C-alpha cells in the first residue's frame, strides 16, 4: 500500500513539474514586447496584448478579451502610420494580427478589446521579430526562416503573402531598410539583403556568430551588426562584404543604436560601448553599469538611457558621464520606449508589468495587470 502511494505521488509530482515547465500561454515565459504612440503604450506580455493609457497607466483594452490557448505574445508591437497595432504570436497559432486601437468593443464580461482588422496565418513557426512597414508593404520575418511580404492596402481581412521568400535561419530581429534593400539578420549566423521592389535575394553573408539584434545603417552608408561572437561587424550593403570593427567582452544581444556618428550598444557582461563610425574607435572607454545588457539603448535629447538585467536604468551623457540612475525592479531585458515626456520600462519578474518614469528617472505611474 505504502509503495502504491509513493508511486502515485511520484507520478503526480512529475506530471506537475513537467506541466510547470511546459511554457503554455503564461506571463514570464520570456520578456515582453513594448511600443507606444502619442496616447497609448502597447505591451505584448504572455497571453495578451494590452493597450495602456499613457496619462494614468490604466488598461484601455486587451487582446484577446479572454485568454486563448494558442496565443503567446512577446514580439514588439508595431504601430502603423494609420494607427493599426500589428503584433505576432509565438504560440501554436503562428498568427500575425492587426488591431484597431480606435475600434474598441466591450464583451459580456465588461472587457474591452480592439477590433481585428486583418490576420495572416501563413507562417509555420513563432513570431519573435516585429515586422517592418515600408509604405504600403509589410516585411515580416518568422522563425520558420521566411520573409513574408504583405500588402497593407489590399483590404483583405485574411491576408495572403504577396511573396514568401525563403532566406533560412531563425529570424528574430526586425528587418531594416535603406530604401532600396531590406536587410535581415538571422540567428543562423547570417545577414541577408533583399531588393525592396523585385524581392530578389541580393546576397546572403555569413557572420561569425548568431545575430539576435537588427542591422543598423550607419552614416557612412555601411551596415553594422553585433553578434554572439562578441563582435561588432561592418558590412557593405551593396556587396555583403564584412569586417569586424570592435571586439566586445561578451555576446552582443542588443541592436546598436545610432546617434550622430556614434553607435551605442551593450553586451552580456554588462559593458556599454560608444563606437564612433567616423573614427572607427570608441568615443570613451566602455562603462559597466550593474548587469548584463540585452535591451537596446534609448537615445533622448539630454542623454542615452541604458537598462540592465539587474533592474536599473542609467542615463549617460554623450561624454560617457553618468547623470543619474534609477532602480526600477525586476529584470529589464525589454528595450525602454520614449513616449512624450515619459520613459516606459517593462521589467520581467517585477511587482508591476510596466512603469512610466519622468525624464529624471522618477516614477510617474506603474501598471499591474488585474489592478
Amino acid at each position, binding site marked *: 500500500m505504502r509503495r502504491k502511494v509513493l508511486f502515485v505521488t*511520484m507520478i503526480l509530482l512529475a*506530471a506537475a513539474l*513537467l506541466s510547470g*515547465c*511546459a511554457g503554455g500561454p503564461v506571463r514570464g515565459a*520570456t520578456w515582453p514586447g513594448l511600443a507606444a504612440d502619442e496616447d497609448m503604450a502597447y505591451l505584448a506580455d504572455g497571453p495578451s496584448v494590452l493597450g495602456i493609457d499613457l496619462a494614468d497607466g490604466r488598461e484601455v483594452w486587451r487582446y484577446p478579451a479572454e485568454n486563448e490557448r494558442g496565443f503567446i505574445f512577446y514580439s514588439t508591437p508595431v504601430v502603423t502610420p494609420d494607427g493599426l497595432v500589428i503584433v505576432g504570436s*509565438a504560440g501554436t497559432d503562428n498568427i500575425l494580427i492587426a488591431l484597431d486601437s480606435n475600434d474598441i468593443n466591450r464583451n459580456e464580461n465588461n472587457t474591452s478589446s480592439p477590433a481585428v482588422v486583418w490576420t495572416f496565418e501563413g507562417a509555420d513557426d513563432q513570431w519573435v521579430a516585429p515586422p517592418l512597414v515600408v509604405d504600403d508593404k509589410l516585411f515580416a520575418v518568422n522563425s520558420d526562416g521566411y520573409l513574408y511580404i504583405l500588402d497593407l492596402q489590399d483590404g483583405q481581412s485574411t491576408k495572403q503573402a504577396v511573396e514568401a521568400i525563403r532566406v533560412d535561419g531563425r529570424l528574430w530581429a526586425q528587418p531594416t531598410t535603406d530604401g532600396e534593400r531590406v536587410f535581415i539578420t538571422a540567428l543562423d549566423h547570417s545577414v541577408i539583403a533583399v531588393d525592396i521592389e523585385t524581392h530578389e535575394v541580393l546576397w546572403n553573408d555569413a557572420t561569425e556568430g548568431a545575430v539576435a539584434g537588427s542591422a543598423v545603417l550607419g552614416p557612412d552608408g555601411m551596415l553594422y551588426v553585433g553578434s*554572439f561572437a562578441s563582435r561588432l561587424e561592418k558590412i557593405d550593403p551593396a556587396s555583403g562584404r564584412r569586417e569586424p570593427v570592435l571586439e566586445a567582452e561578451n*555576446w552582443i544581444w542588443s541592436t546598436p543604436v545610432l546617434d550622430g556618428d556614434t553607435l551605442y550598444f551593450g553586451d552580456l557582461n554588462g559593458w556599454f560601448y560608444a563606437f564612433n563610425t567616423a573614427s572607427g574607435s570608441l568615443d570613451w572607454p566602455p562603462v559597466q553599469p550593474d548587469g548584463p545588457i*540585452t535591451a537596446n539603448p534609448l537615445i533622448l535629447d539630454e542623454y542615452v538611457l541604458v537598462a540592465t538585467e539587474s533592474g536599473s536604468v542609467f542615463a549617460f551623457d554623450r561624454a560617457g558621464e553618468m547623470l543619474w540612475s534609477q532602480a526600477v525592479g525586476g529584470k529589464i531585458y525589454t528595450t525602454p520606449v520614449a513616449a512624450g515626456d515619459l520613459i516606459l520600462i517593462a521589467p520581467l519578474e517585477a511587482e508591476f508589468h510596466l512603469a512610466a518614469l519622468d525624464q529624471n528617472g522618477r516614477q510617474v505611474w506603474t501598471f499591474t495587470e488585474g489592478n
Partner: protein
Amino acid sequence: MWDYFVSIFVNVLIWIYDLVGNNFGIAIILFTILIRIVTWPLNAQQMKSAAAMQQLQNDKEWQAIQKKYAKDREKLAQEQMRIYRERKINPFSSCLPTLIQFPIIIALYQSITRALGSSPLDLLKLSRSIIFPFLDVADLIPLNSKFLWMDLGHPESIPIFGFAFPTLALIVAITTYVQSKLTLPATANPNDQSAAMGKMMSIYMPLLLGYFSITFASGLSVYFITSNVLGIVQYAMQGKANWSSLLPASLRSQSQKK
C-alpha cells in the same frame, strides 16, 4: 543546485551534438545510452531485488509468517524485516531506478528546451549554462532542432486525413508497455503485492509517458523510446525477459503447458 544539474545535462547534450556533426536527435539518443550506462548498476540491482522478492513470495517461511501474523501488522513487519536482513534483500532497491527516472526526465526536458533556445529567455539562460570551457556555444547556436520528420523542441504529430496523429506518443506507450510486461515476473500467488504493483505500473506508465509525449517537446519522446528499447535489450541480454507475459492470459497458459 537543480539549475547546476540541468546545466550539466545541457553541456553534455551540446558536447555530443558538436561531436556527432550537429544532430540533436542523435545527441539525445547517445545521451540516453550514457544515462543507461551510468544507471546500469542500479537497473541490475533492481532486477536482482525483483527476482529475490519474487522468490520470497513463494517461500514457505514467508508464507507462514503472513498467515501467523495476519492480524498483527507490527509483528508481521518486524518478521518481514528479519527475513530481509537474513537474506540480504533490500525491498526498496527495486523502486530506486523508477524513482531516479523522474528527476532525469524533468532535467532532460528542461535541458532540451534550454539547449534549443526556442524563446529569447531560453537562449539567454543557455548562455549562462555553459560550464564546459571547451564548448564554443556561440559558434554552435542556434542548435538544429530538426531530426527525421520532427522538430525536437515541439510535440510531434503526423497529419493523417486531416487529423494530427501523435506517432511518437504511440511508440512511447507501446515500448513502455512492452518493457514493463517483460520485466514483470510470472506469479501464481493472488496476494503477491509486488506483482500487483508491477501490473499497475504496466498500465499507468505507458499512459503517463504517452501523455507526456503528446504534450511536451518530442526530444523527450526520443529519450523515452531509446530508454525503453535499451531496457528491453538489457533484460533480454541477461536472459530475464519474460516474453510469454506479452501474450494474452489464455495463450500464455497454453504455451506454458507445452
